[in-house]
């Protein structure tokens, strides 16, 4: 393949398409189950309950410190399965590539996907590629769908939430949102910050035998504030977070100060939030702290009976001991972070 850039012909179903599949997706996507000849993959599933999910990824820029749209597309779907109490098994993937994307970039994306899948122990078993004319797409869009096996002992159910429960987070928040923002180079800020983009399955596996673990969520778009809103609204409870306890990297904090962002609304792509009975929160923190990327895990808040006197069910006790509301996000400060 001598072409350096994706052309429309790469998507026309002819020779170039064939070459693209063989020389990029097969070569760099390397998985024995990836069947590029038949129109559907065949795989066996144990005779148990399965979970299925799908998500599309349009991050800009395509590559950022700590990952790219390929690794993000694997982790996003793996994480949705993981927090639902499933062991992720199989992924499908579908690429929409804009004419003009460099082959080198596409290869990096596919490689990152394969690496992420390998590390997360999932198989990418089927895929598709389309090419759209220049100007009609944002470089590379990727959809992944995933199937996972429901872990029989998990009891994650939002209906189990009750006042007094603790909120635990597996690591510092907002790294992904800020890493992508800075990678856009719009603010002229330099930073060493890397995205937290990773599989959260090890965190789930570490605690899902603890009976008091009630519900898990990966705080992606909208950050922990919106994850709390979803839970509070679904249960008619309130949630109060404690600013001083929320792990935050110094760089995220200074970027937020500089640009006036609230870190609680910034996306994570490799963190998980658990709602747990108060008597097990220390155990959850302890187990998470020995996981990779888990050393800053912490209890960050609690579930309260619905605070009817406030307009909004999520609040924050601030560093200086005051209290403020964390309202629902209105306009996303960071478009296209996932």
């Amino acid at each position, binding site marked *: 393949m001598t072409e350096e850039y994706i052309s429309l012909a790469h998507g026309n179903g002819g020779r170039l398409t064939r070459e693209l599949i063989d020389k990029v997706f097969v070569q760099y996507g390397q998985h024995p189950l990836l069947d590029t000849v038949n129109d559907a993959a065949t795989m066996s599933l144990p005779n148990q309950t399965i979970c299925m999910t799908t998500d599309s990824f349009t991050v800009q820029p395509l590559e950022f410190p700590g990952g790219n749209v390929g690794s993000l597309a694997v982790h996003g779907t793996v994480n949705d399965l993981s927090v639902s109490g499933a062991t992720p098994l199989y992924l499908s993937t579908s690429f929409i590539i804009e004419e003009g994307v460099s082959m080198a970039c596409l290869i990096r994306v596919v490689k990152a996907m394969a690496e992420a899948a390998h590390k997360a122990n999932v198989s990418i078993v089927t895929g598709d590629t389309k090419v759209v004319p220049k100007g009609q797409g944002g470089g590379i869009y990727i959809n992944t769908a995933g199937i996972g096996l429901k872990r029989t002992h998990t009891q994650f159910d939002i209906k189990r939430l009750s006042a007094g429960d603790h909120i635990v987070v597996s690591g510092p928040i907002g790294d992904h949102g800020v890493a992508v923002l800075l990678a856009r180079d719009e603010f002229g800020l330099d930073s060493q910050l890397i995205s937290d983009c990773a599989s959260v399955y090890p965190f789930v596996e570490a605690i899902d035998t603890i009976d008091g673990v009630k519900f898990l969520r990966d705080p992606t778009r909208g950050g922990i504030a919106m994850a709390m809103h979803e839970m509070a609204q679904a249960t008619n409870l309130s949630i109060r977070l404690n600013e001083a306890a929320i792990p935050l990297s110094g760089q995220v904090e200074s970027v937020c100060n500089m640009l006036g962002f609230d870190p609680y609304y910034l996306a994570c792509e490799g963190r998980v939030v658990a709602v747990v009975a108060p008597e097990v929160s220390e155990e959850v923190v302890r187990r998470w702290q020995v996981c990779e990327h888990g050393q800053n895990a912490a209890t960050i808040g609690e579930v309260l009976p619905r605070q009817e006197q406030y307009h909004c069910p999520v609040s924050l006790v601030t560093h200086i001991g005051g209290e403020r509301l964390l*309202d629902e996000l209105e306009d996303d400060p960071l478009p296209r972070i996932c």
Partner: protein
Amino acid sequence: MRRQSVETLIAGLDAMHPERPFRVMNVCGGHERSITQAGLRSLLDKHIELIPGPGCPVCICPEEDIAQAIHLALNEQVILLSFGDMLRVPVFSHTEGPRSLLAARSQGADVRPVASPLDAVAIARANVTQQVVFFAAGFETTMAPVAAMVAEGVPDNLTVLLSGRLTWPAVAMLLSNDEQAFDALIAPGHVATIMGSDEWAFVAEQHGLPTAIAGFHGESVLAALQCLLQQRSDNRAQLVNCYPEVVKPQGNTQAQQLLREVMVVSAANWRGIGVVEDSGFTLRPEFATVNARVRFSELTDQSSFTPLAPPAGARCADVVLGRLYPDQCPLFGNECTPRHPIGPCMVSDEGACRIWMSSGMRSVDESKPTPEGV
């Protein structure tokens, strides 16, 4: 450590227990955001009132200027650039056509948000066949980089629709209309960084009100508050710079020099407030070629512009002037929300209504000031 110093500060404030209301105004959206996001009001004695004043450049940008921007944007030759906050600000008085820049955009106008004058120059360079108009609304902190851009020279196809304001004249106007408008002032840290702290001495010297320049952490605001309260209990009034690591008495003289080279100061209209003497920046005649109002004099002619009364119930002017807290406007959180803003203060991140909506404690028993003129 941090917590410790905050507790000391709060204890210090409590120890001074004010027995009568002490109304402290801030005139910077950044301060209002720090106060609200730190939940400061929930910690203070109820006699200490923290009042957001005219500190949001988007909120006070006159409607005729926005109407000019909309008009320009609707011209096919024009790419209209604006700070993102301004895009959704509604114009009450526009009789026909779109009532915000965003509405103009949905009708096909090329309206783009920018973060800095550098973006404007880059966009002009990348679109040489188009006329690029940079709608630059802001206070001194925004005007300084705009002046730098103009002084340096801009691409031929770039002009500036300037809507710049100085902060201190609005405070002077508030005090000359009503000496009792507030009891002490937290002076704006960012503006003072450029213009110098000395600019704010008049509040203490001429009006006898304690004044402190504050930084932007909750702790810095608390430290400034303690300084103000101490002044009152000692019965003195002076300007104290509580942000000396950044703010100097003379400010950034280089930036001021650029401002003087490029712009002149004259009377200007403030939305909801009216004309304030010596409060507006306009481009000097030498820079007429960069002035959108000169190059597009027909498109920007708003002489027939007639403002409509704001929608019934909207109290934006009272909120901007610090006469009412945001949640005392009957539309707050009801008809007027960030998704469906009625007034400018619900749009901008610097606007008091928007800040209170997204992070204030909106509880039923929140202590409120005695509303004047409700």
